[in-house]
């Protein structure tokens, strides 16, 4: 039927009695359109080849032909579980590139929506991860809280999923007293909800059997595979962009980064549960510390940005030791490149921008955690069973919208 499509699994001599299974792209547990080509011996996976690209929309090419402000809507569609966090990541990167100041209130609002997005994403992760392992009741309990947050998003910015909330130099809307009241009530009730999920799965012997010791990742291995986020912290590597390269108002807030030891599925599960509690603490602080003021910075650009440089570009202002040239200068649209990482729920979301002094990015690269995590699946998926592979896909917390871009 499909002569044109070549099977990517290389068939070599003596391989004929391997059982080949193409899991996905339409499969209940591959979280979107991930396809995994498996070679099985019974139910044990001998080789595992993830295939992505079914959702490739060419964001990096699209971005080269749109202004910085317009590209914001693309980031909603990266990790659609936490669109707010992507918005913030994108804006932080562009603000670094174009040297735009953010108002203090906007910083706190950004942290607030970031953490709300983290909660929505982690709740959805918990829901689907538990469903993958078979505990289907957790699914709806988690959605109950997620719904509260989604409605808060809708009230705040007019959209539930693709928020487009941040703007260069600030955010789109201020919070109201009502929203903060609702958020406050949510923050108070949330730890009890976490306890509820934990009653169902945390100490359950079947859950423990399915998660403890499965797909362990040591610290070296995690760094080798370039894992980030909870997947790396599960192995005990203390790497959280919010602490290492603080952005928005994270340096003014007090929170902890949970670290695991064993690096197995259970450790990552515990870390995400702890992270939810930490997010809750951050939200509480945001409510208490929200500063007054405007929601955009003083030099925030208009939404319709000019496409030519506003000031003359002056590189090579001062030289340092011959070779090192400091070309830093306050100038919008000056040539140069920045890499800014933010901690989205899935891991480290980085934006690498190259500017050629025009109003559109010359090159935008999205370092998407999901893409790298699916790449790691190739290593982690070897030698486990089919049921474990499902759990591993769940624990890596991949979103194909972000992976394929």
């Amino acid at each position, binding site marked *: 039927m499909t002569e044109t499509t070549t099977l990517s699994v290389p068939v070599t001599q003596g391989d004929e009695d391997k059982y080949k299974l193409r899991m996905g792209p339409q499969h209940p547990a591959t979280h979107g359109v991930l396809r995994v080509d498996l070679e099985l011996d019974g139910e044990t996976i001998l080789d595992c080849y993830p295939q992505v690209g079914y959702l490739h929309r060419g964001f990096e090419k699209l971005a080269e032909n749109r202004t910085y402000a317009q590209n914001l809507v693309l980031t909603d569609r990266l990790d659609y579980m936490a669109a707010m966090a992507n918005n913030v990541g994108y804006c932080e990167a562009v603000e670094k590139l174009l040297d735009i100041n953010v108002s203090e209130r906007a910083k706190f609002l950004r942290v607030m929506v970031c953490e709300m997005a983290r909660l929505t994403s982690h709740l959805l992760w918990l829901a689907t991860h538990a469903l993958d392992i078979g505990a289907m009741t957790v699914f709806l309990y988690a959605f*109950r809280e997620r719904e509260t947050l989604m409605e808060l998003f809708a009230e705040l910015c007019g*959209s539930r999923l*693709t928020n487009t909330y941040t703007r260069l130099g600030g955010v789109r809307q201020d919070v109201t007293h009502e929203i903060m*009241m609702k958020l406050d009530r949510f923050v108070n009730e949330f730890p009890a909800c976490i306890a509820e999920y934990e009653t169902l799965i945390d100490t*359950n012997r079947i859950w423990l059997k399915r998660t403890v010791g499965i797909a362990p990742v040591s610290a070296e291995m995690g760094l080798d595979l370039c894992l980030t986020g909870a997947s790396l912290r599960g192995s005990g590597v203390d790497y959280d962009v919010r602490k290492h390269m603080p952005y928005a108002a994270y340096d003014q807030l007090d929170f902890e980064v949970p670290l695991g030891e064993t690096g197995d599925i259970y450790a990552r599960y515990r870390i995400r549960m702890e992270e939810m509690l930490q997010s809750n603490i951050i939200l509480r602080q945001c409510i*208490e510390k929200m500063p007054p003021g405007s929601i955009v910075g003083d030099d925030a650009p208009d939404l319709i940005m000019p496409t030519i440089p506003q000031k003359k570009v002056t590189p090579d202002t001062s030289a340092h030791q011959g070779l090192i040239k400091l070309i830093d200068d306050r100038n919008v649209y000056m040539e140069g490149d920045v890499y800014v990482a933010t901690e989205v729920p899935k891991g480290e979301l980085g934006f690498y921008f190259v500017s050629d002094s025009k109003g559109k990015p010359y090159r935008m690269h999205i370092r998407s955690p999901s893409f790298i995590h699916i790449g790691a699946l190739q290593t982690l998926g070897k030698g486990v069973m089919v049921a474990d592979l499902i759990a591993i896909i769940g624990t890596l917390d991949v979103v194909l919208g972000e992976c394929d871009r």
Partner: protein
Amino acid sequence: MNVQYKPKRNLLGTIFQVEILQGMALTLRKLFSPPITRQYPEEKPPMYPGFRGQHALVRDPLTQESKCIGCMRCATICPSRCIHIRCEKDTRGKEVLQSYSIEALRCVFCGFCVEVCPVGAITMTEVFEYASYDRESLYFNKDALLKNWDKFLDESGHGEDYVNPFWRPRGLPEAELPAAQRMKVPEDWTIAGQFIGTNLRSPKQKITDTHTEEDHA
């Protein structure tokens, strides 16, 4: 901070399946708790003002025509390039809108067009149920967009001079806003009335807001 693990199951817990029974007790309790789901077609979700739904062109109560002045700002900013505008100069040399169309199937519902509009002509209504079986009916031309506005006014019961206050962003100084967005808004939409960080739970600093009482009730 290292993650805390719950204590390991002891022998009695293993024999009597304590943790499974706890889980089952929870599900049994939930059997008698009220459901959280919404019976959608009968029961509509709450719509907040400013929901980015169906597009509409605001009908000017004075002229019964669109307010659009044909400045092309919306068509310029639109990231999916789904707005098409044609203007012509009339006898007095004034730009007159000839056609205005939005391809709703290409729209990404970012709301940028509404945000940049200097006169508040284009808006996004709270209508979200307008799925259709054919593409043509989702290609809104000027008449369709004006009709959308009438439909929205009918359904929501607003007067014909209704202006969605959401499109005047909260928390911005009045001076930074275009003229069309400088409208009369409730107190807590201005910077003076904005939410400032407080401990909402401590009784001393309880803010005297009418919403507070309702929410706690």
